[in-house]
């Protein structure tokens, strides 16, 4: 045993070196060379230049990182606590489940570009807008896996609790809470980088220090080394956050956190249309009530705080309603031109690469952890880089949206492809079916649930990506309309845009869910309850 281990270690090490270090090393070398070739274009900073910048400015960078991390950490705590509280309510009061999910999705679909200034006005100076934006960026991706995890347990465990005359609360405390822990961890892993992103965007609403402040400074100052150094640090933080949470999880769960992060589509069998409609109406009413009550409670000035009725007026009855509608429709059209191809390209690329890796398994060892890690790179830092490299035409935006969609899809699809039941694979092997045939006949159908789960969760993510890019880089589409209407005090337009974007994102999510049910009914009926 010991000898075998001692013997295996150097081989393992060299394998790791060849497999997972050689690739990145070559990439870094290429990066260095490319950067030197492109000096003067102010696009690419060489790894060596980034290191020099970091070594010269580590104190500044460290302080900024400390501030942003503190806000991200506070938001991470608040957002995840909120998710846990909401999930608890949904479990203890099952009737509230659909309402909580619906409202949570709607709030998650609110574009950061627009919520930022509103939060700044509500909270005034200080770190709260950063913290709340970080919390808003994380709660949904924790809530959803948590709701899955709280229900993913053998019915016998619940019967056990009931057989002692105890109710839902005891089931939650004694059984569900621990059973959901792996799912909570999976949610937290996604949440860590998202919180960082939220805190950085929050700094754009007026902050004295932090990584977001430095990012703006670097972009404006054409300081390429600084831009890339910030991106490298943010990426490293995001990846480390992801890994640390995973490591802690393995330490006390003795198990890998699950990867699937979306619930199966809500039961929507034929004949349940009426129930779905009622559900939609209830969620809409609750959202409008919350909106109205929120403005009243916070006692916000009507100059910038517009209620549901103001938005209806602006969109339908005001003298310039037609103009407002056409502005919004035009901007949404511009956005769709980037969003839809980017979204589809990201989905297809993610699924395709996952399949390729199944056919060429040698790559999987490095690709999977790399993709999981890269999934956590915040868009605020990638946006400037991609735009630097690809320019601000359609291509840059489409690619950015695709990147945002690509990584989660890839991770989910690879997981799905590997879920193919071993016995069915054995049956195919017994007929000497090749890997390609196995892929087509067994693995792809097995992948579909994971693929669609990713497709659904990526709707709000891609909207976030496209609005951020439009706002920060390209200056067109709905992201730009929102930023511009805020600076021109056109708050009717801003709130209308927010409402329309949130509703369209939620509808997009529901639309993908509908398609998902149709496809799964044919290929994976066991996924539909």
């Amino acid at each position, binding site marked *: 045993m010991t000898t075998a281990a001692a013997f295996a270690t150097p081989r393992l090490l060299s394998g790791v070196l060849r497999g997972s270090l050689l690739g990145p090393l070559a990439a870094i070398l290429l990066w260095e060379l490319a950067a030197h070739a492109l000096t003067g274009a*102010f696009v690419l900073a060489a790894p060596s230049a980034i290191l020099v910048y970091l070594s010269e400015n580590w104190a500044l960078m460290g302080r900024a990182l400390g501030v942003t991390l503190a806000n991200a950490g506070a938001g991470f705590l608040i957002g995840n606590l909120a998710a846990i509280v909401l999930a608890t309510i949904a479990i203890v009061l099952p009737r509230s489940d659909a309402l909580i999910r619906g409202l949570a999705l709607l709030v998650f679909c609110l574009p950061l570009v627009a919520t930022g200034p509103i939060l700044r*006005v509500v909270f005034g100076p200080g770190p709260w807008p950063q913290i709340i934006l970080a919390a808003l960026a994380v709660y949904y991706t924790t809530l959803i896996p948590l709701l899955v995890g709280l229900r993913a347990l053998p019915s016998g465990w619940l019967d056990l609790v009931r057989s002692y005359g105890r109710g839902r609360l005891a089931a939650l405390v004694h059984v569900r809470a621990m059973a959901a822990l792996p799912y909570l961890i999976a949610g937290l892993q996604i949440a860590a980088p998202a919180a960082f992103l939220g805190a950085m965007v929050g700094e754009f609403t007026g902050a004295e*220090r932090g990584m977001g402040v430095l990012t*703006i400074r670097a972009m*404006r*100052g054409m300081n390429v080394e600084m831009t890339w150094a910030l991106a490298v640090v943010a990426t490293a933080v995001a990846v480390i956050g992801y890994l640390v949470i995973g490591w802690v999880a393995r330490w006390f769960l003795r198990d890998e956190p699950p990867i699937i992060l979306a619930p199966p589509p809500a039961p929507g069998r034929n004949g349940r249309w009426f129930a779905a409609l009622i559900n939609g109406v209830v969620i809409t009413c609750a959202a409008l009530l919350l909106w109205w009550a929120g403005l009243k409670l916070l006692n916000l*000035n009507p*100059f910038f705080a517009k209620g549901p009725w103001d938005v209806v007026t602006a969109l339908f009855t005001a003298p310039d309603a037609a103009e407002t509608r056409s502005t919004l429709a035009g901007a949404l059209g511009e956005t769709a031109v980037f969003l839809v191809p980017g979204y589809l390209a990201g989905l297809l690329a993610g699924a395709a690469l996952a399949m390729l890796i199944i056919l060429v398994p040698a790559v999987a060892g490095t690709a999977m952890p790399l993709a999981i890690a890269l999934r956590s790179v915040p868009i605020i830092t990638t946006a400037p880089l991609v735009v630097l490299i690809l320019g601000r035409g359609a291509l840059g935006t489409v690619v950015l949206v695709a990147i945002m969609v690509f990584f989660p899809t890839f991770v989910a699809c690879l997981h799905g492809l590997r879920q193919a039941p071993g016995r069915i694979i054995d049956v195919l092997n017994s007929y000497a079916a090749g890997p390609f045939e196995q892929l087509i006949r067994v693995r792809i159908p097995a992948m579909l649930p994971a693929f669609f789960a990713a497709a659904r969760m990526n709707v709000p993510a891609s909207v976030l990506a496209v609005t951020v890019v439009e706002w920060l880089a390209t200056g067109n589409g709905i992201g730009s309309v929102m930023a511009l209407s805020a600076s021109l005090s*056109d708050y009717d337009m801003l709130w209308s845009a927010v409402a329309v974007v949130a509703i369209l994102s939620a509808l997009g999510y529901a639309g993908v869910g509908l398609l998902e049910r149709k496809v799964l009914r044919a290929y994976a009926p066991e996924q539909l309850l």
Partner: protein
Amino acid sequence: MNTRTGITRRHLLATGTAAFGASAALGLSSRRALAQSKVSFQLSWLHSTQFAGSYIALQEGFWREAGLDVSLQPGGPNAPVEPPVVSGSALIGISAADYTAAAVEEGAPFRILGVAMQKNPFVIASLAGNPVNVPGDLEGKRIGMALANTPVLQALCTLNGVDIDAIEVVPTQYSPQPLVAGEVDCLLCWETDLPVAMTIQGVDNVTMLMADHDYAVHSQTYIATEDSLANRRAEIVALMAGEVRGWEAYRADTDAATALTLEMFPDAGLDLETQKLQAARQVPLMFSDLTDANGFGWWTDETVAANIETLALLGRTVTPDLWDRSILEEVHGA
């Protein structure tokens, strides 16, 4: 011009000494007696030498002596100035005539109390090898700018008889990179940021100040609500008085003002050389014969008329009532 500055500075020194003497005589109790009223001042961008006059006022205690405890709130790319001023959480904000006009159209009860940038800082920046020196040079060029600024370009063209259809507008982010990379021939930007960045990075560039070609829009204007003007007048006067003193001191030594900025905001990621150049380039925009004659922040009916004309080209209808000079008149003792 020199004499005028000299007088102002002497005047400043005198009041400063007097105030110092008073507080020294009364001791600590006097400071407590001067109940410090908390005032929030909303800036329009991240902390930088762009607001160095205000930093001097804060650091030198120009406001403290007047019983004001001023907190300077930074802005940012996603931080509109108008809402905190409307809601009263900021007493005064830094806006610009065009943004203020837009907010007033939406029902905000704003008045412009002072004009920090007499000349609008918008420029057309181009590379020295392919310069845009006069508006006519724009024809046949590709200009990089945010599409939202199309009315600005339109106004410039109208004012100078240039055919806007002969200019190719390329939507870009606010960065000098597209110009340096040759994707565009020129940029619509501020005199004090992107051209400074290019100069510091060693890119030889020229700028054409739009204000020199009849584009008259007051920038970095001080705004407050009518309500504040009526009910918190004393604080506004004190705040503006501090501003005036701070900016006069800034003008006297922009390098010192820049050094102070970096000292006060070590975490803002500011580069000393960039900030020094920006501070120097800001001076001719903020100070003119008009301010030399009448004091910092001043305007006349003529400049307001020119502003109203340009604003009309930008689609904003305003009346001279938008400008309220009473605070400045009190500050400058006119």
